[in-house]
């Protein structure tokens, strides 16, 4: 099938630090109802469903069995991907591209506040023989990487503080964000050390919420939606799982995923041909590292460009107009779906107070978090 694939519906819930009043199913249901309403469809119109989840984050074994009911997907083809949201989006695109499916639905959620000891779960992901027996809180890995990255590139803790101040402030204009705030760079620099140089405010705090996204092949999308947003390119890959084999400076997973997506989208010069980006900022330094390894800034130049306002919402290349994970809240593998949601709003011209004028092409880039070196890239556009 040569038709493009478009996003024709997006549904969300408010992102919140805690959500004791709703179950994860009710959150997904709320986002699904909104997405189907937005796309002008009923669940019976959907041909295939893809969900993302990780058993240990859900606290339930074989969690993929818990997916169908709240999506209207009982007795429909459903599968779960235990990977980042953009990899799941790629799966929807590939299924539609087979020509066998017209409409696909993608679901991702986070009930992070239900996890009583999240660091234990992250630690369980460390190599059980060479690293886990040391008993460290796995956040050490971000500390090690931040240290080496800053020294090698010449970016500074001040620049990292600036990332935090920018994203928390940008989130003030995003009604779904969980952590909007006016904070200063000094607040970040003087916050408690966690794994020095990584400090408390450098780390995105977790949020609960859900996103549901409806995709369709171009001919169906044009019939159903007055403002389809096209998936022009997707890429995803994993670097080595062996921490010792990484240089703790580069994020090659994003360089590779971006090259894959740029090639498909026909993008040669990302900074000229893309108008804005939603980029993983789970730790402040990660935004800078990811900007550089996506080819948006030259190595070592992201911090200075940030200082000049280049990546501000009204700058030349806005990064994280939603407020990013730092401003909106970290949702594990579903974080990147917030990026997709934001990009769709921007490309439709529906981002209200934080609308970036005249945007046509968006980049979304994800990272799977500690201790992974996996990521995905999606290029979206509103061009007919």
């Amino acid at each position, binding site marked *: 099938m040569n038709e493009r694939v478009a996003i024709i519906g997006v549904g969300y819930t408010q992102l919140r630090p805690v959500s004791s009043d709703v179950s994860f199913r009710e959150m997904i249901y*709320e986002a699904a109802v909104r997405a189907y309403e937005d796309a002008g469809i009923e669940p019976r119109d959907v041909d295939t469903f893809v969900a993302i989840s990780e058993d240990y984050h859900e606290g339930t074994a074989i969690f993929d069995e818990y997916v169908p009911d709240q999506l209207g997907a009982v007795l429909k083809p459903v599968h779960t991907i235990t990977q980042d949201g953009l990899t799941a989006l790629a799966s929807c695109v590939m299924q539609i591209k087979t020509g066998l499916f017209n409409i696909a639905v993608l679901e991702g959620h986070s009930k992070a506040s239900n996890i009583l000891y999240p660091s234990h779960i992250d630690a369980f992901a460390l190599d059980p023989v060479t690293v886990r027996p040391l008993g460290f809180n796995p956040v050490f890995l971000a500390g090690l990487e931040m240290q080496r990255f800053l020294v090698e590139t010449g970016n500074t803790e001040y620049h990292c503080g600036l990332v935090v101040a920018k994203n928390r402030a940008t989130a003030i204009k995003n009604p779904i964000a969980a952590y909007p705030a006016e904070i200063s760079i000094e607040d970040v620099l003087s916050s408690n050390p966690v794994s020095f140089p990584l400090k408390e405010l450098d780390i995105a705090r977790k949020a609960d919420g859900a996103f549901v996204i409806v995709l369709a092949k171009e001919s169906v999308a044009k019939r159903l939606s007055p403002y389809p947003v096209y998936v022009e390119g997707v890429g995803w890959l994993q670097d080595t799982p062996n921490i010792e084999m990484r240089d703790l400076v580069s994020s090659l997973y994003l360089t590779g995923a971006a090259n894959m997506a740029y090639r498909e989208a026909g993008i040669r010069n990302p900074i000229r041909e893309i108008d804005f980006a939603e980029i993983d900022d789970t730790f402040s330094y990660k935004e800078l590292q990811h900007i550089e390894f996506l080819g948006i800034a030259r190595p070592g130049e992201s911090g200075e460009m940030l200082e000049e306002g280049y990546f501000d919402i009204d700058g030349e290349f806005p990064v994280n107009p939603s407020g990013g994970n730092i401003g909106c809240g970290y949702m594990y593998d579903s974080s990147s779906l917030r990026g997709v949601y934001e990009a769709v709003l921007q490309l439709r011209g529906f981002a209200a107070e934080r609308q970036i004028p005249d945007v046509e092409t968006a980049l979304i880039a994800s990272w799977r978090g500690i201790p992974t070196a996996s990521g995905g890239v999606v290029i979206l556009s509103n061009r007919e």
Partner: protein
Amino acid sequence: MFEKIEKFDKIRVWKGEKTGWHRYTYGIAGEMFFRKLMEKKFVAGKCPECERLFIPPRIYCEDCFVEIKEFVEIKELPRVYSFTFLFKDLEDNLLKEPEIVVFLKWDNIEGGLIHRLKEVNIEDVNFGLVVEPVFKEKPEGNINDILYWRPKK
């Protein structure tokens, strides 16, 4: 949307936990590494194709994807490649004293080891610092046979 719960005292939760018990076998290369560690020695695997050495050793080269059969003892000491001062335990409580977590690399060897550094002034912790292992009296064949690393004396 649907009606929401407004009163906090109406909210109930069930707390559950899941404990897993596992055994993790080391495999051919891992046995080689940890048996040598019990003798207070370090071995690396040597790729027959690219001829690079790897620590910890594996029975394949992840770049060339060929089998590694040669294991070489490494007599040199590693250097600190990166370090961090870790303040939190696994329950995210403050540690009584921060741990110095280090990523150690040997010159001209791929890979390295994550471990802890002690007997050092914080100001002296830096990239390139050569360190030596302090072993447990009775090694058992696991990564904690190394109690910690300290600057080379």
